[in-house]
């Protein structure tokens, strides 16, 4: 019998008190090969969200960055990274949202899982655009709206639901 996981609660507006010790300083680049992703996080009115914290997880690394007063963030990831899993926490989110960013459309295409599951007209929300220089990317997150970023749920039990039968693979 599985235990029921503890309920989530919002990170609130003052998370930096407890979480800032792991905030990555993206102005410092450890390696010349590092890639930098920058972007803005906006709400359903298109307003910047200044009190969001993002965590970028890859197969071998973890980076946490907050948004600034203008809703913008900047994160460095390793040279070989083509995809990050991302959690966003903020006031107004009772539990984190879980998404992915692909550092090129080609990386996305190689990921058969996401290609199959995400509707074609929304898949662009997961692909970072080339930035002002090599190894620089832009990826914005929209919490709501016609071009709302794709957010995932990760529960294999749901895939056994008949209603989700089309999602079997």
């Amino acid at each position, binding site marked *: 019998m*599985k235990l029921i996981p503890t309920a989530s609660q919002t*990170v*609130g507006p003052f998370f930096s*008190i407890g979480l800032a010790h792991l905030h990555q300083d993206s102005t410092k680049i450890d390696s010349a090969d590092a890639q930098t992703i920058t972007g803005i996080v906006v709400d359903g009115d298109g307003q910047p*969200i200044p009190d969001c914290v993002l965590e970028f*997880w890859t197969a071998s690394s973890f980076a946490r960055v907050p948004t600034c007063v203008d809703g913008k963030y900047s994160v460095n990831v390793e040279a070989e990274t083509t995809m990050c899993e991302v959690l966003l926490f903020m006031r107004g989110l*009772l539990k984190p949202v879980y998404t992915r960013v692909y550092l090129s459309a080609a990386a996305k295409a190689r990921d058969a899982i996401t290609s199959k599951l995400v509707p074609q007209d929304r898949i662009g929300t997961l692909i970072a655009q080339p930035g002002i220089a090599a190894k620089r990317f832009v990826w914005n997150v929209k919490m709501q709206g016609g071009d709302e970023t794709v957010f995932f749920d990760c529960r294999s039990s749901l895939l056994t639901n008949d209603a989700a039968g089309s999602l079997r*693979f």
Partner: protein
Amino acid sequence: MTTPIEGREARKKTQPPYLFPGYVSTQKRAPLKPLILLPENSSSLFIPVFGHDSVRATDADLTRQQAGEPLGERIIVSGKVVDDDGHPVRGGLIELWQANAAGRYRHHLDIHGAPLDPNVTGCGRLLTDAQGAYSFVSIKPGAYPWKNHENAWRPAHIHFSLFGAGILSRLVTQMYFPGDPLFARDPIFNSIPDEAARTRLVSTFDWRTTKPEFALGYRFDIVLRGAKSTPMETDHP
């Protein structure tokens, strides 16, 4: 015995929804489109390991981080972190933050008129031990007002951030104190539909960890989602 679907619906009620209009900030920030379901095993297996270099001894005693002692009621919060199979989460990083005894955070955006306490940072962190156990010393945080609705006050709480067996185990939550009269009107607490799940966020007073002439003990146990969380894995190719 519940059917899988009933079980799924019941489990869903043990977590808050994204959109909970009574908590006003969710209205423009909650995703409104359906989530895309991914198979559980598609996520990263990477587990960040946080060593003792990220945690100093004083980080687990929030009353000894400054020159003097904070004002307020000293507390010792202890508990155990396990995964949903009941296995201890060992060496897991716990990050904590809280308001001072007057209900004020040491944060430039906290404009509540209650006084700051020069001896409170409100920041703590520690690693769980080989049994998944943790314990820290602090002062009981105060309730504080917020602008969500008329005369809105948050019940006293301590923020917890935890790492377990990967990204799906990540948990940020809040621990409350028993008997708080503010529970009934707090939309954040009440966003969890299942009463038992909600109640599990309320710590219990603990004589066993209460230290004579020193501090009151509270117990708060935590269950993190495991790497394999759901009981119907076999249906999945």
